[in-house]
């Protein structure tokens, strides 16, 4: 595409913007006083019913200048950071793969496997017959907030953990066309915890290990209950709501340790990952994300790949004063484990406050990935994706541990689709970035320098207090938020559910008061290029680009599930549960559930030998806060600016909390 043609397209877009303004009721006419077209006069639609006229005049010369400049700059910038054009899946070429455990038909942790790939070898439901899928039974959770959790299935029992108040249900799957409740465990979390839970009171699900179901409550309890009886085995409080801490993540059990982390990056919380003894619940180690090496558990074995991540006590020296104590880097996302290397992988969240001018420095180890030895918690390597993060680009997204053919050899990598818009492929033994390619439209950075691991920031997107920065892409929820991807070794593709949002923001001075928000940013989000707010991207890690892409009107805030039937499942925020062809993305089936879907689909083999697929329906989360929290769309900055992009959601879905289970007839 020539530059000239791109400019024409861009000008074409400007025209569309004018038409949009017109559609919203703005009147505009040319101000052609002496016969020459000199300016456009915009008149605000409210003028009609207000006593004074709200209008503004844009000189045409200025208009032309700005538009041309924008179009040119846009074009130059985008060349570096626009995702590559879709391609057919590489059929003859080498593709990514993974070593699988034997399929037991169960789903014992949110991501099914320790490698975090959300792939099931069950293959009764295929791309050919999925169109016959139908709901077989449903279960209401009694809770209306956002249901991000994954159901588990162990020993013919399904376990559902709700958002706050974190009710845990055990449903008996042996009864055929319904699933009576075996027991319900009510942890009775403090209701006040809701007041420090940024972005809805979600929970991402429990984990099964050693005969126990283990989960976190919003008020910072880690609880193990007997999977058979619901009796509490232990209950350990590991955080304090009066410091702004909550817990929403799904624990991972590795080597008789329960790994859990905290939430609260918008509340001046100091992030940590803790390992609790599986038998007793006692804390074996705590690895903070900020602070001195002794508390970050950085020691002799720590060997980051890049010089930028090396040095003593970087968790203190990359901050000013004691800011690291309230600097964020919480651990509310996903943990993966490689038993061969004996390393766990997880990302840390954004630094706090959002306003970057209040925290000079790289703010280590926020927005980073850690590889740790689970036995001791020691860090083996770390890599900071977004040093001195400017836009709330958390690093907590999932890390899929797969094997990828790369430059003639098979590399054991982690695939990390980051909020900053790049899919990182890293050697998981060393932390070396093999590739970092954009999967969304990016204006804030110009790629990752593979030589030194540095993210190349676009200086104009670094706003100061009181300054409005426009066209920040991706927006604060990132190119992709918490919603987890899946990987199919049959196609070699990673299925990324994500959003397509940009934003304007303005820094404010944030005032730290423990237990209250610590953000310092006014944000207003909007749909990214194309106007669609969501996408499902099938990412080919071997090629470092998308194999195919599906667009969705609303952000795809649910996880994905890949199966050996070559079907990929996901849900939409207006309630459709969908199945698409894992190879082509062709839409195969959909069903309208009661509320918007932001949960994690899973599949299991029932006691009758049939394959079932299950999903929680129940809109909410950050993207659905306007519905879950009844927010007022007239304030574009509501829900940290998310409401601006989701004003129409209340007309498209309603609150609910229901499990749907599907099967073939």
């Amino acid at each position, binding site marked *: 595409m020539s530059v000239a043609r791109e400019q024409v397209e861009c000008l074409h877009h400007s025209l569309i913007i004018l038409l949009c303004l017109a559609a*919203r*009721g703005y009147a505009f006419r040319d101000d052609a006083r002496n016969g020459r077209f000199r300016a456009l006069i915009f008149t*605000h*639609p*409210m003028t009609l019913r207000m006593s*004074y*006229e*709200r209008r*503004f005049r844009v000189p045409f010369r200025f208009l032309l200048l700005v538009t041309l400049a924008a179009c040119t700059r846009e074009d130059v910038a985008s060349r570096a950071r626009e995702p590559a054009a879709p391609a057919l899946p590489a059929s003859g070429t080498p593709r990514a793969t993974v070593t699988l455990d034997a399929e037991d038909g169960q789903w014992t942790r949110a991501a099914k496997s320790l490698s975090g790939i959300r792939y099931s070898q069950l293959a009764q439901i295929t791309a050919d017959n999925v169109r016959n899928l139908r709901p077989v039974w449903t279960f209401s959770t009694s809770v*209306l*907030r956002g249901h991000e959790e994954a159901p588990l299935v162990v020993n013919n029992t399904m376990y559902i953990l709700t958002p706050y108040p974190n009710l845990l249900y055990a449903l008996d799957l042996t009864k055929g066309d319904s699933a009576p409740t075996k027991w319900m465990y009510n942890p009775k979390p403090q*209701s*006040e*915890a*809701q*007041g*420090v*839970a*940024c*972005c809805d009171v979600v929970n991402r699900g429990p984990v099964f290990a050693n005969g126990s179901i283990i989960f976190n409550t919003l008020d910072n309890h880690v609880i193990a209950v007997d999977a058979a009886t619901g009796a509490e085995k232990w209950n350990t409080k590991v955080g304090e709501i009066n410091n702004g801490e909550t817990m929403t993540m799904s624990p991972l059990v590795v080597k008789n340790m329960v790994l859990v982390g905290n939430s609260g990056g*918008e509340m001046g919380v100091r992030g940590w990952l803790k390992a609790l003894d599986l038998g007793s619940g006692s804390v074996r180690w705590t690895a903070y994300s900020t602070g001195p090496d002794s508390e970050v558990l950085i020691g002799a074995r720590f060997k980051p790949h890049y010089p930028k991540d090396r040095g003593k006590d970087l968790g203190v020296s990359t901050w000013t004063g004691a800011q690291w104590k309230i600097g964020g880097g919480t651990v509310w996302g996903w943990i993966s484990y490689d038993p061969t290397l004996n390393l766990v992988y997880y990302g840390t969240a954004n630094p706090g406050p959002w306003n970057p001018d209040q925290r000079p420095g790289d703010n280590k180890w926020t927005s980073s990935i850690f590889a740790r030895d689970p036995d001791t918690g020691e860090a083996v390597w770390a890599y900071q994706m977004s040093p001195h993060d400017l836009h709330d680009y958390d690093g907590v997204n999932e890390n899929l541990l797969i094997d990828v053919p790369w430059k003639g050899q098979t590399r054991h990598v982690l695939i990390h689709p980051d909020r900053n818009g790049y899919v990182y492929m890293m050697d998981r033994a060393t932390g070396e970035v093999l590739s970092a390619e954009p999967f969304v439209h990016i204006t804030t950075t110009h790629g990752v320098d593979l030589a030194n691991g540095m993210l190349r920031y676009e200086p104009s997107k670094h706003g100061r207090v009181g300054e*409005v920065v*426009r066209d920040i892409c991706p927006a604060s929820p990132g190119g992709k938020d918490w919603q987890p991807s899946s990987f199919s070794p049959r196609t070699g593709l990673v299925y990324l559910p994500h959003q397509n949002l940009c934003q*304007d923001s*303005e820094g*404010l001075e944030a*005032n730290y*008061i423990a*237990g*209250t*928000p*610590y*953000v310092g940013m*006014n944000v*207003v989000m*909007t749909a990214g290029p194309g106007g669609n707010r969501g996408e499902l991207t099938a990412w080919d890690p071997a090629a470092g680009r998308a194999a195919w892409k599906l667009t969705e009107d609303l952000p795809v805030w649910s996880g994905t599930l890949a199966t050996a039937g070559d079907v990929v499942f996901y849900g939409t925020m207006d309630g459709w549960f969908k199945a698409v062809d894992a190879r082509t993305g062709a839409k195969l089936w959909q069903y309208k559930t009661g509320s918007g879907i932001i949960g994690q689909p899973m599949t299991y083999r029932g006691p009758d030998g049939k394959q079932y697929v299950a999903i929680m329906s129940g809109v909410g989360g950050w993207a659905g*806060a306007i519905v879950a*929290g*009844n*927010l*007022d*769309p*007239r*304030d*574009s*900055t*509501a*829900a*940290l600016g998310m*409401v*601006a992009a989701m*004003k129409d959601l*209340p*007309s498209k879905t*309603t*609150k609910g909390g229901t499990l749907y289970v599907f099967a073939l007839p």
Partner: protein
Amino acid sequence: MMLRPLACRARTPLLLVGAALAVVGCRREERRFRESPPATTPSAVRVSALQPGTMADTSHMPNPYESSAYAQSEGQRLFGWYNCAGCHANGGGGMGPPLMDDEWIYGSSPENIYNTIIQGRPNGMPSFAGKIPSPQIWQLVTYVRSLSGLTPMSGRSARTEHMNFYQGAQSMQGAQTPKNSFRPPASEFP
């Protein structure tokens, strides 16, 4: 307590849309020096309109700052300073419920809002007892009520209007919540 000479401080709007609003919003008022802080906290304030037996008059404790544009402007500043905006945004809500609409879970009277601030509320509103001096709470009350048009808007700056250029006709001009809105009420927000 800091006193400022101008009753209304309007920042220079960065973009065009906000300008007219800010100008219209400015009005001068009498400046009050050394006013005595209002009396102690309201005690037996009803949170429910339901009264068993014969209806009694509800004696309202008047907000001494109810019509003060200065108090409203100060309230807006304090709304940011005490991180109210962190949960309630600029009135549209987030972690906390919206304040710019016509739904008031714990009552809309000045003394209701005063009590909500000092007592806290069970589903997440912290108790600010001992954290904010009483006169400042009343200023916050004045500002909070202005968000939904319960007090005049004269004192509010147009601080956030400039953020809404791309989003179209966002109006911060008081509560005219359409009866036919899509928003179900916040019945699960105690």
